[in-house]
């Protein structure tokens, strides 16, 4: 800004009057347009350097208004408005009444207009990013502003969440959400720069009037609604909180085993993410329950146990092993096999006459017994039903809530406003912010209208001090005439 890319035209001589209005933004609504003005322009097709018709005051045409006095140089005039023409100007095409100068009425709004309906999903900002940096980068990347058009610096408030992102939000509203964390709000100032207007009620006043010489009238305004006396501020914790469910069955199954193995290890995951050990459902305090062992053999099923795989935190379990000891010793089978083989060998030797018959008889009996033992051990096949119980839990980013309320309010008299900002994460910080926001709500019941001598340096969100009272400016209206009347009407909240 400051240097227009297209030619600039000074049309001061054709503008007969300007009705200027500047309002507070982002206050209990989403109004982002700070200022607008209506220009009365003399219709002149032959004007130089450009004609003064509806063809030159096109929708979107950039307009900048300077306030000054012809007795001083124009370079010293103060830019009080930078914006664009909105819509189509009105003009009288024909009238039977006495001829007056044909006029154009042109309405202009500030630059915020362009960004009201621009919904974006912006880039994610990583932890430790200052919100000022996030606001500036958002403005550059999604409002397509030049860095020189943005007068926002570091705000000394770093993002703590792993990632923070504006998702599906109007871009200017998103910047407002970012700056809300530090009690500021975006607006385009008179020069067209994007600034972070400070809403601090304790900031120093821009003007301090020792007497009422500059003041025409101060009038307290009627308020037709009750004032909020409680502020509930919501944020999101940046640290995960475990939300633990009641103990329930996490997994169950069957194991069929027998003589062919002595121990069964069965991996159990609490979700279907098998193979991804540290993902999926998690639990704590897991244990085995309701195991039932059924088998034919009396020695089957010596033990069933649960071996959870506990993570480093000492309680999280994603998976574990059901370990089933069948009670079967492989040495038994080897022994029986060996006995049978030995008995067969002795029987063979008996046929050859090498060993006496009574030894062969013993060998036959031993072989038969070994065979029966083998057959019996092969019937040792059983079935185990198992269940693993535990407390599933989820790690969530918990909502934080800080309420600031005027004391001594009866329950039925509480009038609360709820404000939410997911970029807030520290409950202590939120407490201070909630207090500030409560102060801000309370002063809305102390609205004043101040008629005073025009001062182009005073803007909305400024604080002025008149004798012992302080006011926070919420709107400014003035008519810039030629010659001017030199007055402006402010509305303001009394803050002291």
């Amino acid at each position, binding site marked *: 800004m400051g240097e227009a890319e297209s030619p600039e035209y000074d049309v001061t001589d054709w503008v007969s009057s300007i009705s200027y209005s500047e309002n507070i933004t982002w206050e209990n609504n989403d109004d982002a347009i700070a200022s607008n003005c209506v220009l009365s322009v003399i219709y002149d097709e032959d004007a130089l350097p450009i004609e003064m018709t509806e063809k030159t005051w096109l929708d979107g045409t950039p307009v900048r208004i300077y306030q000054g006095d012809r007795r001083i140089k124009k370079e010293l005039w103060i830019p009080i408005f930078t914006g664009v023409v909105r819509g189509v100007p009105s003009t009288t095409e024909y009238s039977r009444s006495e001829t007056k100068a044909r006029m154009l009425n042109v309405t202009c709004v500030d630059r915020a207009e362009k960004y009201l309906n621009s919904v974006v999903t912006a880039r994610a900002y990583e932890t430790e990013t200052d919100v000022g940096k996030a606001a500036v980068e958002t403005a550059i990347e999604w409002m397509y502003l030049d860095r020189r058009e943005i007068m926002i610096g570091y705000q000394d408030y770093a993002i703590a969440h792993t990632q923070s992102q504006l998702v599906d939000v109007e871009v200017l509203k998103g910047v407002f959400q970012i700056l809300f964390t530090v009690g500021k709000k975006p607006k385009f100032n008179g020069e067209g720069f994007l600034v972070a207007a400070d809403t601090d009620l304790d900031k120093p006043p821009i003007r301090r009037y020792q007497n009422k010489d500059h003041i025409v009238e101060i009038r307290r305004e009627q308020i037709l609604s009750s004032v909020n*006396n409680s502020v*509930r501020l*919501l944020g999101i*914790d940046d640290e995960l*909180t*475990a*939300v*633990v*469910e*009641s103990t329930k069955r996490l997994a169950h199954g069957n194991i069929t085993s027998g003589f062919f193995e002595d121990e069964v290890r069965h991996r159990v995951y609490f979700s279907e993410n098998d193979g991804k050990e540290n993902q999926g459902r998690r639990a704590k305090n897991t244990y085995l329950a309701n195991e039932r062992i059924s088998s034919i053999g009396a020695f089957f099923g010596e033990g069933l146990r649960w071996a959870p795989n506990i993570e480093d935190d000492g309680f999280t379990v994603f998976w574990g092993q059901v370990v089933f000891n069948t009670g079967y010793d492989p040495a038994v089978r080897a022994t029986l096999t060996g006995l049978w083989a030995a008995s067969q060998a002795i029987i063979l030797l008996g046929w050859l006459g090498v060993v006496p018959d009574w030894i062969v008889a013993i060998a036959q009996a031993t072989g038969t017994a070994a065979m029966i033992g083998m057959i019996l051990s092969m019937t040792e096949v059983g079935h185990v039903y198992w269940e693993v119980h535990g407390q599933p839990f*989820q790690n*969530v980013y*918990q*909502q*934080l*809530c*800080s*309420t*600031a*309320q*005027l*004391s*001594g*309010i*009866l*329950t*039925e*008299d509480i009038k609360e406003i*709820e404000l939410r900002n997911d970029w807030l994460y520290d*409950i202590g910080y*939120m*407490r201070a912010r*909630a*207090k500030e926001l*409560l*102060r801000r709500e*309370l*002063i809305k019941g*102390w609205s004043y209208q101040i008629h005073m001598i025009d001062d182009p340096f005073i803007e909305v969100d400024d604080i002025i001090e008149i004798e012992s009272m302080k006011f926070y400016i919420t709107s400014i209206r003035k008519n810039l005439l030629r010659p001017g009347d030199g007055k402006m009407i402010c509305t303001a909240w*009394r*803050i*002291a």
Partner: protein
Amino acid sequence: MAREFSIVRELSRRELERHTKRFIGVTVTKPDFRDQNGLTEWVCDIRVGVKEGWALVKNCLIAQWAIGAVTDMNVPVLAERSEAGRVTIIARSDIQLPDIDFVSYSYDQLEFSFMHNLRTLDDGSVVDGFGYEFAGPSDGGYTAPVGTSTTHRYSNRLIEWGSTDFDYGVTEFGATISEWEEV
């Protein structure tokens, strides 16, 4: 009487829905009753959580807003008061506190002393615009008259000039004197 549950805050309801549907008992300790104009309010400490993680919520304001029901004001829990007066509060998860913070401020603490509707008389007493005496200007927005614990009814009647046969102050409107009557 049927059991009544209620939540004042929509937020509380949302917070509950965010968590799993499980009820966890909460105990209320040290009730400090405040009786203002017929409404029973009390401040107490509430323990929220499961065995593994109790957390203490200090200074929770609980208000009885309907017969048989106690509605928690600041904690995302359901609360019920039995006819016998026992308070039961039920939460639906072990929300780890202090995620909820509640602070009340007086006008003076907010540096808005000009907002008081009270004024101090020469004798040091603090009165409101109607002339009723208050405990002091530091009690914030609304402060119950000194010593009141009952419902009051406003009446308007002619009484003798300067009479003091009533408790809560006098406002003069010409010959008519209005007063608050204890009922």
